[in-house]
C-alpha cells in the first residue's frame, strides 16, 4: 500500500512538473517570445524592447521558468498585461465561479449516473434498462454546448424560469448565484452522466457474473441485498477510474459552457486573454486547469486505496 501511494505521489509530482515545462515551452519559447506575440510583427523595435524588459524577457529562460513556477507556488501569478492587475486576483475571482460549477456538475453526474446505471443493471433486459440505454446513447451524442443552447431556449426564452446567461456574483445571494449556475451545470452533467451511467451499468453487469456473487446468493441474500453488499463496491472500481477522467472533461467542458452562458469563469478568462494576446494570463490559467486535472486524478488513486484492499498485493 505505502509503495503504491508513494509511486502515485511521485507520478503526480512528475506530471505537474512536466505539464508546467510544456506550457512554459509552448507559450514562451515556441512563438518567439510573448512580447513579439503581444505586439505583432509590425511593432516598433523600441516598444518591443521596452515590453521585453517590462515582462522580464531579457533574463535567461531557465530563470524565468523557475521564477514563474516559484511564483505560482507562493501565490504570485504575475501581472496581467491587459488588465494591469495581479493575475492571482483575476483567478481567485473566476475560480469562485468555475469550481462551484464543476463541483455541482460532477455531483449531478455521479448521482444521476450511478443511480441510473444501478437501476438499469438491476432491471437488466427490461423496459427500464432499455430506457436508460437509449437515454445514454443520446446523451453521449449530445454536444454539451448545443444542449446548453437548447436549455436556454426552453427554460429561459420560452419559460423564463432561469436567466439566459451571466452571473450576478455570490454577493448577490446564494440563490440567485446558484440559479444562474444550474442550467450550465445540467448541460455539463447530462453528457457526462450518460457516459458514466453506461460504464456503471456494464460494470455492475460484469460484476454480477462473478463467482462471489453466486456465493452471496447461496448464503440466502436477496438479489437487492447482494447488489448493495457484494456487487456495488467491486463494480465501483472501474467507475471511479472513469470519474477521474470525466472530471478532466468537465473542466474542459466548463470552458465551452461558460462561453455559452456568458459566465465570467476561468474559461471566459482564458478566452479573453487569448483575444487580447495576454500570454501571462493564458499561461497561468492553462497550468491551473492542468493542475486541477492532475490533482483530481491523484485523488482518484487515493480513492482506489480505500475501495480495493488488494491494491498493495496487486501492485506488488
Amino acid at each position: 500500500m505505502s509503495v503504491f501511494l508513494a509511486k502515485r505521489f511521485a507520478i503526480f509530482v512528475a506530471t505537474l512538473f512536466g505539464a508546467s515545462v510544456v506550457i512554459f515551452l509552448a507559450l514562451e519559447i515556441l512563438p518567439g517570445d510573448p512580447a513579439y506575440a503581444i505586439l505583432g510583427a509590425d511593432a516598433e523595435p523600441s516598444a518591443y524592447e521596452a515590453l521585453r524588459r517590462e515582462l522580464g524577457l531579457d533574463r535567461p529562460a531557465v530563470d524565468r521558468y523557475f521564477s514563474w513556477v516559484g511564483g505560482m507556488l507562493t501565490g504570485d501569478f504575475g501581472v496581467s498585461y491587459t488588465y494591469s492587475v495581479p493575475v492571482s486576483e483575476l483567478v481567485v475571482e473566476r475560480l469562485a465561479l468555475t469550481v462551484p460549477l464543476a463541483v455541482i456538475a460532477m455531483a449531478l453526474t455521479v448521482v444521476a449516473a450511478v443511480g441510473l446505471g444501478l437501476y438499469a443493471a438491476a432491471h437488466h433486459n427490461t423496459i427500464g434498462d432499455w430506457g436508460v440505454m437509449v437515454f445514454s446513447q443520446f446523451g453521449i451524442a449530445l454536444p454539451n454546448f448545443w444542449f446548453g443552447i437548447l436549455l436556454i431556449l426552453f427554460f429561459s426564452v420560452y419559460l423564463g424560469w432561469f436567466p439566459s446567461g451571466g452571473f450576478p456574483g455570490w454577493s448577490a445571494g446564494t440563490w440567485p448565484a446558484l440559479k444562474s449556475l444550474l442550467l450550465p451545470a445540467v448541460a455539463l452533467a447530462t453528457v457526462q452522466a450518460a457516459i458514466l451511467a453506461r460504464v456503471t451499468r456494464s460494470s455492475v453487469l460484469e460484476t454480477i457474473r462473478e463467482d462471489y456473487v453466486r456465493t452471496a446468493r447461496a448464503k440466502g441474500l436477496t438479489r437487492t441485498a447482494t447488489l448493495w453488499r457484494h456487487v456495488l463496491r467491486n463494480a465501483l472500481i472501474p467507475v471511479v477510474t472513469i470519474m477521474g477522467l470525466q472530471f478532466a472533461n468537465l473542466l474542459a467542458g466548463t470552458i465551452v459552457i461558460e462561453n455559452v452562458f456568458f459566465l465570467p469563469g476561468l474559461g471566459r478568462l482564458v478566452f479573453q486573454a487569448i483575444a487580447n494576446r495576454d500570454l501571462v494570463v493564458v499561461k497561468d490559467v492553462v497550468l491551473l486547469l492542468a493542475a486541477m486535472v492532475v490533482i483530481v486524478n491523484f485523488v482518484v488513486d487515493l480513492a482506489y486505496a480505500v475501495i480495493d484492499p488488494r491494491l498493495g498485493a496487486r501492485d506488488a
Partner: protein
Amino acid sequence: MTFADAPVVEAEGLTRHYTLPRERLTAAPQRVFALNQVSLTVRAGRSLGVVGESGCGKSTLARCVMALEPLTAGTLHILGKDPHVMRAWTLRRHRRNFQMVFQDPFGSLDPRHTVGRIVAEPLDVAEKWLKPDDRRGRVREVLESVGLKEADMSKYPHEFSGGQRQRVAIARALVTRPALIVADEPVSALDVSVQAQVLNLLQDLQDLYGVTYLLISHDLAVVKYVCHEVAVMYLGRIVEYGPTEGIFTNATHPYTRALLDAVPKLSPSRRRARSALKGMVPDPTETNPGCPFADRCPLVESQCRSQAPELREVAPGHVAACHLV
C-alpha cells in the same frame, strides 16, 4: 534419432530467483527461489517426469529448459549446446531441436490462425527455405501422425474439442522433428476420457520417432504412465529422483510418500488413514538453512531444521534428499 543413450538434456545446478517488488517502502524487496540447484539428465528416447504441487518450480523449470526465461545460475545443455549462452539468432535455429506443449489447449493456439498455420509456425523460423508444397506436406504428415486429417488444416481452433486442440499443439511441437519435447501439464485441462487418448498418443509418438520427453505434471499417475524416470520437486528443489518403478514402489522421501498417499484411490474405502500432511506449501521466499520440507514433515528431527539434506543415492540411479534415509 540421435545415438542411443546420449543425453539430450543435461542440467547442472539450475537456479532461478525472482525479486518481488517491495511491499513496504521500509522493507527490503523479497526474493523468490523458484528454482534452486536443480540438476537432471534425460537420455535420448527416454522420458523424465517432473512432479510437484503448485509453486514447486516445475513450470519454471520447463520454461528455463526451453530458454524462455533466463537462469540465475547453473548450466543447461540441449544436445550438447547451451541455449542460455547462445546469440539470439543461433538460439532461434537451435530451437528446432526442442519444442514445447502447453497446458491449456484453449490458450496455446492463436484463435485467429488456421490449424495449418499454427502447426507450421516453428517451420517459419527453423526451415524458412522450405517450399510451400513441402511445407504443406510436412504439416499434413505431422497432423496425420497425431490422428488429425489434412482437411483440418484450414479449420480454426474453436472448431475443435479440447483433446483435438491438444493434438494440434502436439503436432506443432513435432513438426520440426525435435529431439526433445517439453510438455507442461499436457493433459490437466482435459476430461479423463480424453486425457487417456492424449497420454497414449504421447507414448506412441515416442515409440515411433524416438522423441525425448520432459513431462511436467502435478499428477503422479499421469507421469507414471509416460515416463521412465521421475523427479519430485518441492519448493524449487528436487527432493527425490529415480526410475519410475523405484519411485512408485519404493518411495523414500517423506514428501514423495505423502504425495503418493494423497492421491485418491479408486477403491471405496471410507476412513482411509492418510499420512495427511499438516499445513500448506510455504512461500518459496523464505530461505531457512534446514530442509525445505521440515515444517510439514511427519518425521522431522532437529537436524532437519538446521541443515539442508543433500541428494543421496538410496538405490542404483535413485536419489533422495532426506537425512533420515
